[in-house]
């Protein structure tokens, strides 16, 4: 793959207007697949969540998952869409080994939801109103593994293996109208848009929304046109960009790549491109051609979906608070600094902190735990792993500190035991006898009482003779009947000596 020449980003934006369009696929978290009763589950043994329907054996027929339809309507409503009064499924015909039927059951001219919009805030604080063309229901394909060849990629592979566990998993594809006017912020807007979609489907509870598992996938369309011209440029579609950071990078890369070609009198080929995270570049896939004649026609094996007004209104009433509204509310309630709040949003920890606060923790304490120690532990664990602790347990931990039952150092120790599954923080403190006198006031009183009987200890510590401290520590421990934290006593002694 030859690396393409790129134009400097700022120069590209001086010469061209950027137009983007985003197609986001959301995998729904229904219990079963879109058209059959097989489990919709990630990570099982290959070809164990399959049946005659999803591996397309002769004679099998699809049946629509009611929950998937309702989830799709919810997504449509959350995006401010109109809901299709009569929507048929359609067959999209093309041959590919991961597509068991060699057609995808999708929707064509009657998508379940259409004509919506979404306000998206980019890091600069500017809010863009992204118009939604449509959201339609379809099914995922199976998973191909390419064996042989140097890289395990499709090129040069000797053969491929197909697992249809994912085949038929319900998808909602959300398609924007062309997005104009984002300028230099187009890459950030693309990423922020996908983040917003993720937040919405997560808040709706209709998807696990985990990008690293492919629950949310983005195809990014990019085209350029000289400033002041009307005609849209030829677009490329970069497929399956699977992290927010990659989306931003891929859009930026395409802008620079296309700008270089156009500025040098070349033409953009309408094609599918693939993003390579390692190389930070896109490469050409299949050009769009006659072969993309999908021969859509109404799916004869399924009858139309006609959501009643009552159903739509009851689903509308069940919608949770809009993520943007919620952010505004929480920012006000918690009183974080703007930077602190943005970090929490970026770390995707709003839910955890909100629940921790609801369980009785102070907002700053909740933030400190989730953004600090727990984030560090999560980072060290494998990607996507969630620390084995509930918001209620974090709140309990914070409360133990607040009440002076344990100090920060002991709290970290307790946290370790919680993560190891020993129980709740209070249970662990009780079971392990960790409820120490960490009340510095009581300790300091005891220390001062002991120092009164040993006036030469402080000067000795100041001279660096720490062994002198032992006398005082022993006296304090004795006075507190052994429940004092010796290390803390030692720390406090040093503090006093250094005053």
């Amino acid at each position, binding site marked *: 793959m030859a690396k393409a020449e790129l134009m400097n980003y700022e120069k590209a934006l001086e010469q061209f207007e950027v137009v983007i369009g985003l197609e986001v696929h959301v995998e729904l978290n229904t219990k079963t697949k879109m058209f059959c009763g097989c489990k919709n589950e990630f990570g099982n043994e290959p070809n164990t969540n399959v049946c*005659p329907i999803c*591996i*397309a*054996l*002769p*004679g*099998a*027929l*699809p*049946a*629509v998952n009611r929950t998937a339809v309702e989830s799709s309507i919810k997504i449509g409503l959350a995006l401010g869409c109109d809901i299709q009064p009569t929507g048929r499924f359609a*067959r999209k*015909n093309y*041959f590919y*080994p991961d597509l*068991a*039927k*060699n*057609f995808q059951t999708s929707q064509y001219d009657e998508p379940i939801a259409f004509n919506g919009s979404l306000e998206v805030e980019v890091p600069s604080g500017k809010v863009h109103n992204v118009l939604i063309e449509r959201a339609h229901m379809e099914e995922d394909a199976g998973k191909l593994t390419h064996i042989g060849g140097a890289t395990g990629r499709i090129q040069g592979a000797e053969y*491929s293996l*197909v697992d249809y566990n994912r085949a038929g998993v319900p998808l909602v594809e959300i398609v924007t109208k062309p997005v104009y006017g984002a300028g230099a912020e187009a890459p950030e807007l693309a990423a922020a848009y996908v983040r917003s979609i993720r937040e919405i489907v997560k808040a709706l509870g209709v998807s696990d929304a985990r990008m690293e598992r492919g629950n949310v996938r983005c195809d990014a369309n990019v085209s350029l046109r000289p400033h002041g011209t009307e005609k849209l440029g030829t677009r490329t579609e970069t497929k399956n960009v699977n992290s927010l950071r990659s989306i931003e990078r891929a859009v930026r890369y395409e802008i620079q790549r296309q700008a270089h070609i156009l500025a040098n009198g070349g033409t953009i080929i309408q094609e599918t491109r693939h993003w390579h995270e390692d190389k930070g570049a896109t490469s050409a896939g299949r050009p769009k051609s006659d072969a993309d*004649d999908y*021969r*859509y*026609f109404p799916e*004869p*094996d*399924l*009858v139309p979906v006609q959501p009643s007004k009552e159903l739509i209104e009851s689903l509308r009433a069940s919608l949770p608070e809009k993520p943007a509204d919620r952010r505004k509310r929480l920012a006000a309630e918690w009183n974080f600094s703007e930077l602190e709040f943005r970090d929490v949003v970026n770390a995707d920890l709003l839910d955890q902190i909100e629940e921790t606060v609801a369980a009785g923790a102070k907002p700053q304490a909740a933030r400190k735990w989730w953004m600090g120690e727990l984030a560090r532990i999560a980072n060290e664990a494998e990607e996507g792993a969630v620390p084995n602790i509930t918001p209620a347990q974090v709140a309990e931990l914070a409360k133990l500190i607040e009440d002076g039952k344990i100090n920060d150092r002991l709290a970290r120790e307790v946290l370790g035991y919680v993560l190891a599954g020993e129980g709740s923080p209070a249970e662990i403190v009780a079971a392990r006898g960790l409820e120490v006198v960490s009340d510095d006031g009581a300790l300091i009183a005891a220390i001062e009482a002991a120092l009164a009987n040993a006036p030469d200890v402080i000067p000795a510590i100041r001279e660096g003779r720490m062994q002198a401290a032992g006398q005082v520590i022993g006296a304090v421990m004795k006075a507190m009947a052994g429940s004092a934290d010796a290390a803390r006593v030692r720390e406090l002694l040093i503090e006093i000596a250094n005053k």
Partner: protein
Amino acid sequence: MSDLIRKNASELVELLRSKEVSSVEVTKAHLERSDAVDGAVHSYLYQSPEAALIAAAEIDRQRAAGESLHPLAGLPIAVKDNLCTTDAPTTAGSKILEGWLPPYDATVVKKLRAAGMPILGKTNLDEFAMGSSTEFSAFGPSKNPWDLERIPGGSGGGSSSVVASFQAPLAIGSDTGGSIRFPAAVTGTVGTKPTYGAVSRFGVIALASSLDQVGPVARNVLDTALLQDVIAGHDKHDSTSLPESLGSMADAARKLDVKGMRIGVIKQLTGEGFQKGVSARFQESLNLLQAAGAEIVEVSCPSFEYAIAAYYLILPAEASSNLAKYDSVRFGMRVEPGENATIERVMAATREAGFGPEVKRRIILGTYALSSGSYDKYYGAALKVRTLIQRDFAEAFSKADVLVSPTAPTTAFKFGEKVDDPLAMYLNDIATIPANLAGIPGMSLPNGLAEEDGLPVGIQLLAPAREDARLYQVGGFLEKAHEQVWGKRMIDFAPELEVR
């Protein structure tokens, strides 16, 4: 020839219930008949004598133990080879599926098993049910028991010939444009295409999803009704399955009364283009109906002129998509066109070798009908013609309770006569196709013999959607009237087959 095999299913049911005969005896009699004649007739692609006898013995045991049984329990049956069966290979008459053993039973097959009906085997058909003669079966044609030089109709020529040659009292067929009714007409038997959705399509190898319907095949109207009552009913695995019950067809078949019914003669399906004997017998039946107190009215269905054209767009379009799954990946044949061929080339080579000429022709025609630039002119226009045909029927049924026509323009033609002329073959279906386009039920029953060739002629009855019972009511009457006129059952005019 054992007496048992010539009996009607309704008679066998009585003998079984009264324990005068056992299911094993009935099943054995039919298996022996197959041993004797199927070498010549070739109704079966696969026979399952062991499984049938085990099922029969189980029913006999249950009956002896006094267990409550389905009325048709113990009655053996043959099943068209486009219904999935876990204990018999299912090929749809195609090389591409040769030897495929499905891991699941079609819903209809499940119902037959639940009713305790031993399955004798799988009957022949044109490949993927595309054809009117079984000449497009990859495994050789079935023969018409009336004249082994002639076609038994298609696509369900295996099911029509299996009952016409007394190898089975009942059979399952499927009808996309006449595949139950045309074979019935040319073999002097009875077949019904129920209302679309009345019988589950789950596990039935799809030809054209919006046209396909499974139905009963037998030698008389009551037997056909009894079988429809077994296989009909809602199936949650088929989203186009009707939610409601259509009532008892057997009760309707026993009414034998048409007094006061309005019988509509479809103007466009009489006269020119129909063989002399076909037209003559049709007129006689109208007279019989009138004499019994029915009112004969003429109805006009002008859009029928476009029915064949619409059908030969909709069917190939849906079939081209339904048959895409035959790609050598998950089941069926695989052909390697050379070393290191890509999967794309393997798929193309497999489909080239595995599909016969008619299937390829229709897949490519259907691909054309759906392709960008052609859709509106072909497939889209055909869907609109479908609306016009439904309107014609709605208008006709406002004037008549049941519509009648000859089932087919001619009696059974000879092998080879039309096999190389697709358009001539397609014209055969002119009377049967409109019912599939509109989803309404249709029946063909024997209508006497054509004097010019002595071969059976069929009459078709059509009723509004969900009114299948009307077919059985009128059909039951006509059958009885014919027996009075001709002196015996029509099937009893069939020549004795040479027994091996």
